[in-house]
């Protein structure tokens, strides 16, 4: 059998067109064709274009957000008055666990990664995410993990030990049945997906930047996603280890968390919060990235304090790993240790404040353009500062002990997460929607959407501070009328419904605008980063000629200031093969052109591999041996995924230049 391609085959496979000429040229048409996903059903499951996968990813995470929101509304309805009979304690336990789990694992982190998968390649001026097939695999694994959790919920096997599944409650003695096992395996799915996405984003940001985009010129949003991705690498393994140990305790009789056999329940809390606290910043730092993208555009000036902003992001990431014990102040840890974590918790306010002052300086000295995205950003300031203040209060051990496990904590975490991540995210949707779809969202509906969400949010969550201080514990399915908490709970429920109406209006606005919105053009807001140089929506290859970058805001300043250089500086790249998926790889720090990498074509293997992974993970809930036999199809599919075709090799050999 002849496997190596012949000379003739290699000559026949030689590429014919090289890029460089702009839109409209035969080369540009070839590029569009080269980078498109295939049509048809198989083509749909084989798609790997980063924009296709990212939009599906965003829609999937938003559907989970909707599901988590409905669960939240059900909880609020149950709590609207004392002694309510809408649901019993068992259902309520499942509902609040599913709500927290959905929002943390199926919405907050993945939605940020999904947006990054769309925007990072555009912002750094390239045609694809690094590892597009792996990216598709991560998406499918995520979807299947989420669906498994909800399938279990619908057959009354919904997780019910809280989104952080503390042992001993979540252990084999107090949670028999399969509920917690589904929760633990959901962790395996979503964290696998998140880790893969993190690696994809890191490689894209470090190696695929346009020539001239030194690290010092990388957009702040890309910096935020890069820092987030690095945090994921070091935080997510903790929860995977913890949940694997939990499921082994439950299924094969290990004793990690069993004190009777030398195990320790606090081990769970340490491992979980070593992940769980950085998790908060995994959600929050992308939000900071959105804000740093939106503010310069709507203040119509470059960002003030770029270097300070980047250093603050990095400092936040480091400090985030030194805070986990502040979730454990109510345990019997040494008091000196707690003091250290109090200090670290307060210290993280410094880089956050630095960024807030830089944004304020940018806004103060800019000419403001009050559009919906900016409104969401301004709301961030208001809500996050309140959430940050209660955070500082909670960092003090004595107060923490007083309000531990009360609604004060619920109020605090929602102010931080919704203010720090969800409001910027909605602002980001309004900001980039024209780029995603080519159409503007309605400003009028946008304002209604904003005010309903802003008012609804505060009415829903502000009273919880007071309820918490009055002693209302969290995770209770009801309370007595004599407690006097009924009125404020009713107000809170009313606020939650207003908030839900705001989100609904967003959905209506998005759907309407997708079909009937005003045409956007390439750069409707006058933004300065490279995604605004691409068409809206971008062509399959993003850029028909890759840009060469000479400043931090390449759309505002395509060439260095001063008299034109002689000879003229390059503005774009030429010479990449247009009928192959060839991309320019640049050096990490200076973004000098280095290597031409040929990217793979669309393939069904990532989807097939995700299906095989799903069989492995789900079956292992029922039999530990699935870990062994389930590996066989995964290994076979990965091998087929890797193994090159002769024609593919011929094409590569025709282009090959040795280093």
């Amino acid at each position: 059998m002849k496997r190596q391609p012949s000379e003739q085959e290699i000559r026949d496979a030689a590429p014919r067109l090289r890029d460089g000429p702009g839109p409209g040229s035969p080369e540009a048409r070839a590029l569009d064709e080269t980078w498109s996903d295939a049509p048809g059903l198989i083509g749909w499951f084989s798609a790997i274009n980063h924009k296709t996968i990212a939009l599906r990813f965003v829609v999937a995470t938003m559907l989970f957000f909707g599901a988590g929101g409905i669960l939240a509304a059900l909880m609020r309805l149950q709590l609207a008055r004392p002694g309510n009979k809408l649901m019993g304690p068992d259902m309520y336990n499942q509902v609040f666990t599913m709500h927290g789990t959905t929002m943390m694992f199926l919405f907050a982190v993945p939605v940020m990664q999904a947006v990054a998968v769309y925007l990072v390649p555009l912002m750094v001026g390239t045609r694809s995410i690094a590892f597009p097939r792996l990216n598709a695999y991560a998406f499918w694994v995520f979807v299947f993990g989420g669906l498994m959790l909800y399938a279990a919920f619908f057959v009354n096997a919904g997780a019910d030990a809280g989104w952080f599944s503390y042992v001993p409650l979540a252990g084999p003695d107090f949670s028999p049945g399969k509920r917690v096992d589904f929760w633990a395996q959901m962790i395996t799915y979503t964290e696998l997906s998140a880790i893969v996405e993190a690696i994809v984003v890191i490689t894209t940001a470090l190696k695929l930047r346009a020539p001239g985009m030194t690290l010092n010129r990388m957009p702040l949003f890309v910096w935020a996603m890069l820092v987030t991705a690095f945090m994921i690498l070091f935080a997510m393994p903790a929860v995977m280890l913890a949940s694997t140990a939990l499921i082994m305790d439950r299924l094969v009789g290990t004793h990690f968390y069993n004190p009777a056999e030398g195990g320790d329940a606090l081990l769970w809390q340490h491992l979980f919060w070593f992940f769980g606290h950085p998790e908060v910043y995994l959600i929050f730092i992308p939000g900071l990235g959105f804000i740093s993208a939106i503010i310069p555009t709507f203040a119509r000036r470059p960002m003030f304090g770029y270097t300070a902003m980047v250093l603050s992001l990095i400092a936040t990431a480091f400090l985030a790993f030194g805070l986990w014990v502040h979730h454990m102040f109510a345990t019997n840890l040494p008091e000196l240790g707690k003091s250290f974590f109090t200090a670290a918790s307060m210290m993280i306010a410094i880089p956050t404040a630095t960024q807030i002052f830089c944004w304020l300086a940018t806004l103060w000295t800019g000419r403001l353009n009050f559009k919906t995205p900016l409104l969401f950003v301004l709301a961030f300031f208001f809500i996050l500062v309140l959430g940050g203040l209660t955070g500082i209060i909670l960092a003090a051990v004595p107060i923490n002990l007083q309000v531990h496990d009360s609604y004060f904590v619920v109020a605090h975490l929602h102010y931080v997460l919704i203010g720090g991540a969800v409001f910027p995210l909605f602002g980001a949707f309004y900001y980039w929607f024209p780029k995603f779809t080519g159409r503007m969202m309605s400003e009028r509906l946008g304002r209604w959407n904003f005010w309903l969400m802003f008012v609804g949010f505060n009415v829903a969550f502000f009273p919880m501070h007071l309820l918490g201080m009055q002693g209302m514990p969290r995770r209770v399915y009801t309370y007595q009328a004599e407690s006097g908490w009924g009125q404020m709970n009713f107000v809170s429920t009313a606020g939650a419904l207003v908030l839900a109406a705001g989100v609904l209006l967003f959905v209506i606005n998005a759907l309407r605008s997708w079909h009937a919105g005003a045409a956007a053009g390439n750069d409707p807001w006058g933004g300065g980063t490279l995604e605004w140089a691409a068409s809206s929506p971008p062509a399959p290859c993003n850029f028909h000629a890759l840009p060469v970058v000479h400043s931090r805001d390449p759309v505002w300043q395509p060439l260095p200031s001063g008299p034109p250089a002689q000879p003229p500086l390059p503005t774009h790249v030429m010479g990449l093969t247009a009928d192959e998926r060839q991309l320019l790889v640049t050096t990490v720090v200076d973004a000098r052109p280095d290597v031409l990498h040929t990217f793979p074509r669309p393939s069904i293997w990532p989807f097939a591999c995700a299906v095989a992974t799903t069989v492995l993970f789900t079956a292992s809930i029922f039999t530990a041996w699935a870990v062994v036999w389930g590996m066989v199809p995964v290994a076979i599919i990965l091998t087929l995924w890797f193994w090159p075709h002769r024609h593919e090799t011929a094409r590569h050999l025709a282009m090959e230049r040795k280093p």
Partner: protein
Amino acid sequence: MTAARVRGTALDVSSLPTYGFSHRSIVWWATLGMIAVEATVFALAIATYFYLRSHATTWPLAGKPPDLLWGTINTLVMLGSLLPNHLAKKAAEKDNVSRARLWMAVCLAMGLLFLVIRIFEFRSLNTGWDTDAYGSIVWTLLGLHTVHLVTDFYDSAVLTLLLFIGPLEGRHMQDVSENAFYWYFVVASWLPIYLVIYWAARLH
């Protein structure tokens, strides 16, 4: 000359190489990312070991520490595999396919050897995963590392097969180089785990 050149207002990159070794390759960065993740898992598992130990009055909780023989032999075999691994890497970077084949095959033979010895290691732990928390963490540490041995052995085997029968291109030499990079990690990560499993249970 393989460098980008300015032509008018365009930067011509058509003469750049189509692959490169080490940090020039994007796959190298992905491998480094996986190494960061897996090293974190190992570090946390080791931290768990010492956390559990700090709560115990005797350690091991019951019974005796693992027997040293097989674990120590395996450590030497793994360290020995670094030589053919290094030679395979160098051969690949010099674009010498036949040498890369040879040393990859030697690596695989040693891989097979340490997988077999690993079975004896499990048998000499002197505890079960369901005996007590000590047994659980020791089995988990050894199990985690074994998963790495198995997966690394398998993907090295696939790559070696490709070197012998597959349609080859220059970029597969880059794959050999990165495969060797990962092998270094699998061996290097064993050393702290070896010390913890076999020696931390002996120190008091």
